[in-house]
């Protein structure tokens, strides 16, 4: 039988045998094995130098079994108990083929890049800070300490609110000043100022005075720089 397909790469004798059978488009049967006996032996001889020495024995065993099968086909009376031992080559090749196909599927999985990753181990002693609270610390104590700290913050937060409440608006001041002028006919702005609680209130009082002048509600008289200002109600009201 002419044999034309050259097989350059094979992994082990069964792989070579399988490739030979498949290159001839044969099923795995005892007959097909007889057909590839010659190419197999020829391949082993030709690749003698390329086969790793430790694998050569395995190739020779398969070659011997193939030759034995062929001999038996010609001389059915010939049997060698040693070569009859173990599973027959046909069974072995079928089994090998099943796993060779499975290996291709595993290769596809391995190359798909869908790997899983485990956690990377970091020694907890080095990485994690050690929390060593003093004796007697309980979750309730921590809660109490937190409440205490929160209570200390309360006056700070409440302060702006109360100061706003106490701050007098220009409008309120205008009202006060107008009431005073309308009841007393003449009144001293200095005395009105002196009733202020702070600088802020003084500023508001002065703004209120300017507003009343602008609205022509009061008339002001001042004898000289920094002397008292006398307020008089105008007739407009």
């Amino acid at each position, binding site marked *: 039988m002419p044999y034309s397909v050259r097989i350059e790469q094979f*992994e*082990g*004798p*069964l*792989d070579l*045998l399988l490739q030979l059978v498949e290159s001839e488009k044969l099923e795995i049967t005892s007959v097909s094995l007889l057909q590839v006996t010659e190419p197999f032996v020829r391949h082993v001889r030709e690749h003698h130098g390329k086969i790793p020495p*430790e*694998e050569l*024995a*395995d190739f020779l065993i*398969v070659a011997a079994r193939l030759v034995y099968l062929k001999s038996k086909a010609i001389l059915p009376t010939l049997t060698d108990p040693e070569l009859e*031992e*173990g*599973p027959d080559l046909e*069974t*072995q090749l*079928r*089994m*090998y083929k*099943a*796993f*060779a196909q*499975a*290996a*291709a*599927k*595993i*290769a596809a*999985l*391995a*190359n*798909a*890049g*869908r*790997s*899983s*990753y*485990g*956690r*990377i*181990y*970091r020694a907890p002693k080095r990485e994690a800070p050690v929390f060593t609270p003093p004796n007697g610390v309980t979750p309730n104590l921590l809660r109490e300490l937190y409440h205490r700290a929160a209570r200390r913050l309360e006056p700070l937060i409440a302060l702006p609110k109360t100061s706003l409440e106490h701050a007098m608006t220009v409008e309120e001041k205008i009202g006060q000043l107008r009431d005073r002028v309308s009841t007393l006919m003449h009144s001293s702005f200095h005395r009105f100022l002196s009733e202020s609680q702070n600088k802020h209130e003084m500023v508001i009082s002065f703004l209120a005075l300017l507003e009343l002048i602008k609205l022509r509600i009061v008339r002001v008289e001042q004898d000289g720089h920094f002397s008292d200002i006398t307020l008089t109600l105008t007739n407009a009201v």
Partner: protein
Amino acid sequence: MTLDALIEALLFATSQPMSARKIAEAVSQKPPEVEDALNALQERLASSGSGTRLVRSGQTAELVTHPDAAEIVRAALKQELHGELSKPSLETLSILAYRGPMTRPELEQIRGVQSSLILRNLMLRGLVEHKEDARLGQPTYGVTVAFFKHIGLSGAEELPDYSELRGHSAVEQALQELVASHEHSA
């Protein structure tokens, strides 16, 4: 806390594959209870759409990321894709994954070629390991959790055509004959 949640916490904290025996020691439970809890944990993570899953190889379990997250996790870890496995490596891994743990003669029976070097290389890569059970006076070899992580499966049962190849009649026959011939010569 349920036992499976406890084991989940344990595997999260230890961040490495743990044998069922060690887990049993850590949680002070009997191995059958741990086995049930591992099954429950695997099932719970799988059915709840979790980003983690339990990978198991034989008696060993590890908590790992879901393969759907592989791309992002790999980028975040700046981890290179592993180099491609050679054909003989893949073949050996496949046989051990489907049919393992098995002894070296059993493996060689299927591959038809002596495989000590390839086993050693795969062990160096952390894809194959000695398993606890020995047979016929020989150590057995099986794939590791790292192998299943590498291909993104949570265990042997997820391998393509697992039950068919696991119980392959030719394999059964070949391995039984090997045992018979060993007993015969012994």
